[in-house]
């Protein structure tokens, strides 16, 4: 009958389509070497990179992948020491304003072309060019003319970088920048193959067209799923690379990531689910890696509005009432370190300054906090009422609840905790109209105290509390002019002391990196930067693995 025929035709079509599609995706891009070749290293990314264009990228995940498919003038070892990358050697002038880099003669792009100084110049100019709209355009702010170019007052080719010959790059600075080398490991400073951009325009950063000067090349990218990297045989240090094939899987849910790890689908996770932390610590002791990193978790005051504007004593009271030890042991409980300073420990050439009350016992702290609270005019009958805002995440909520309880118990202050969506919170923090106390965090871009202290300058865009202290600004400015590292350090420490004495923020704890790493992965070393280049890793045999 006609109708049944129609129905069956449709059904057959649907089934056919389904099978075809299945055949397509199952047999398409992710075949090639992954089936028959040596096993791939499967790593996880907590979020999808928004771009693999070195100058357009932004997130830490993008930077992680970029560090595998590109290389800057300098790079890091597995232990986190700064070593030559594409630059074989360099010299700094006596006034600290000119750096001359000599590139390796055997540095090559993945198509065999030599990596030249001009490629670096191109990349750096691209970074500051307003047309690129690069997020890290301000990274090299101290390079001659950089700020002016970003503002649109000068042309990109006036940037203070020059290729004096094929393998020599000269960088000219407006101010001494002791952490310049650290900056030059950042993917936004990576070179770009000019011919590639000329040929493909802005679409050059895709699989198949993106050229790499690093240990791996971009083989494929399934947005939302996985990024595939293959060994770059033209890399100058290719002989030291063990693993041929790396796959970065995008996994946003921590528990799902843990499941995949257990099912053997991931070798390295990007984090560890907090709910299962105890279980993991017990069952996977040898595979769990927890290490301090350069990140601080803090509560910031809105210093432009009541009740915290012009009220350092109240701020100090709130800061002292928080028992950080309880926070890191009971609430977060994953090896974090309590924060009594703004700059995390482990930064190059620097010893963080501690909060004045760091050494006191809990009773002493609470007593002082209570008296400060009363001095600010509050009491049990007239408690301080304020709002603490945080973005939606389980951890933030738990900490906020704990803080709320602590303020209530120690001071009698009534905090209302408000949970806001991330984007909305960013807006509110920036506008400073509704926030009073907010949760935030800061991660250092480069291994220097300045990466934490600079953001508290009055004119810094990342200065969310609205901290404005002329003495602080002056100290940082002076620090920026020092060539002698020891003197510079003194200025920086003094600046941190001023910042902490003003209690512009309540630092709570320092972040740790947490990874699960399968035993068959070799070469993994924890470091404070949390950089784990795939080229330093190796993949051994698994027990019971019958693959060749």
């Amino acid at each position, binding site marked *: 009958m006609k109708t049944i025929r129609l129905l069956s035709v449709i059904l057959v079509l649907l089934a056919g389509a389904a099978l075809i599609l299945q055949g397509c995706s199952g047999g398409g891009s992710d075949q090639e070497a992954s089936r028959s070749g040596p096993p791939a290293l499967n790593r996880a990314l907590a979020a999808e990179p928004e771009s693999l264009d070195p100058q357009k990228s932004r997130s830490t995940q993008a930077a992680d992948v970029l560090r595998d498919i590109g290389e800057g003038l300098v790079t890091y070892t597995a232990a986190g020491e700064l070593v030559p990358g594409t630059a074989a050697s360099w010299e700094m002038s006596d006034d600290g304003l000119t750096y001359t880099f000599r590139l390796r003669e055997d540095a090559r792009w993945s198509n065999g072309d030599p990596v030249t100084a001009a490629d670096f110049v191109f990349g750096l100019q691209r970074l500051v060019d307003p047309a690129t709209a690069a997020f890290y355009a301000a990274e090299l702010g101290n390079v001659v003319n950089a700020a002016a170019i970003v503002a649109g007052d000068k042309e990109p080719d006036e940037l203070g970088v020059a290729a004096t010959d094929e393998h020599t790059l000269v960088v000219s600075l407006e101010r001494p920048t002791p952490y310049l080398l650290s900056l030059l490991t950042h993917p936004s400073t990576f070179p770009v193959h000019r011919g590639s951009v000329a040929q493909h325009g802005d679409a050059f950063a895709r699989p198949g067209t993106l050229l790499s000067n690093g240990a791996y090349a971009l083989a494929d990218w399934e947005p939302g799923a996985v990024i595939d990297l293959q060994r770059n045989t033209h890399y100058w240090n290719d002989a030291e690379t063990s693993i041929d094939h790396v796959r970065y899987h995008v996994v946003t849910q921590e*528990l799902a990531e843990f499941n995949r790890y257990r099912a053997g689908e991931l070798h390295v996770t990007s984090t560890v689910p907090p*709910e299962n932390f105890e*279980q993991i610590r017990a069952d996977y002791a040898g595979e769990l890696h927890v290490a301090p990193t350069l990140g601080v978790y803090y509560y910031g005051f809105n210093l432009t509005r009541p009740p915290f504007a012009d009220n350092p004593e109240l701020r100090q009271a709130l800061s002292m009432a928080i028992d950080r030890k309880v926070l890191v042991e009971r609430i977060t409980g994953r090896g974090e370190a309590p924060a009594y300073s703004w700059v995390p420990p482990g930064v190059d050439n620097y010893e963080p300054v501690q909060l004045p009350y760091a050494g006191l016992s809990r009773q002493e702290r609470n007593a002082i906090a209570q008296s400060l609270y009363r001095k600010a005019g509050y009491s049990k009958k007239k408690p301080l009422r304020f709002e603490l805002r945080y973005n939606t995440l389980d951890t933030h909520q*738990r900490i906020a609840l704990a803080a709320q*309880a602590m303020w209530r118990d120690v001071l009698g202050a009534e905090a209302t905790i408000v*949970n*806001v*969506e991330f984007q909305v919170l960013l807006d509110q923090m920036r506008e400073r109209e509704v926030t009073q106390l907010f949760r935030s965090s800061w991660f250092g871009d480069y291994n220097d105290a300045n990466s934490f202290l600079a953001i508290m300058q009055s004119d810094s865009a990342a200065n969310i509390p609205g901290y404005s202290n002329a003495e602080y600004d002056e100290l940082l400015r002076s620090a920026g002019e020092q060539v002698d590292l020891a003197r510079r350090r003194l200025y920086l420490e003094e600046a941190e002391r001023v910042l902490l004495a003003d209690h512009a923020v309540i630092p709570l704890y320092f972040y740790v990196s947490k990874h699960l790493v399968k035993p068959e992965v070799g070469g993994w070393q924890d470091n404070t930067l949390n950089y784990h280049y795939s080229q330093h890793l190796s993949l051994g045999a698994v027990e019971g693995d019958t693959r060749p």
Partner: protein
Amino acid sequence: MVSGGVLCAIGLVAVIGPWISPNEYLTADFNNILRSPAFADGHVFGTDDLGRDLFVRTMMGVQVTFAVAIVASIVSLVIGVLYGATAGFVGGRVDAVMMRLVDTLYAMPFIFFVILLLVVFERNFLLIFVAIGAINWLDMARIVRGQTLSLREREFVQAAQLLGVSTPKIILRHIAPNLIGVVIVYVTLTIPQAILIESFLSFLGLGVQEPQTSLGKLVNDGTDQMEGAAWLLLIPATLLAVILLCFNFLGDGMRDLFDSRRSE
């Protein structure tokens, strides 16, 4: 009918429970984290990862879930009935246009708009009701319209029209009451839908916000704790399943009841 009884029982416990329990759903007791259920220490259902009593939180969750579901259904009911009755009764061009609008709205990927709405308006409690109600009223409108069309031809309506009663009055006082049967059946069937939508929104982080909770949210949170603290999942999930089943059976029962009455 058993279902009706069960539901009432659950509702009662949900309301009374938090009153008589010594624990508060808000208090985080960090010394008592993740205790499994035990009568002895007063935490009948155990505690969650912040030390909050699960019994009270679950009862709270039931209250919220009921509230969301009922209010959302009422929202969709009111809009749907008024809209559908008007379209069906007035008929003609107005009806055609109104139904056209319904068809148009049907085409919109509603769940996406709900997500967008919640993202835009900062997830307040009220909005969740509105959003869920906004998804459901279309079906209600269609069904009501169909019913109205047939009711329109009945004698008492025509009598009212002859008497000169105004159209809105006719709709309100004559048509609407006769729709009750159909509407009740439909409402009891859409309530489970509303509950599931809310829990789905909780999954995305867009549902009810802390410190309040709903069954859907508790189930979501419990799923994360599945391996370490299974009771955090089992108890709310069982309760949720029971409630959904009850509503489904209730709806079936209602439908049988009203159908048999009508076809007499």
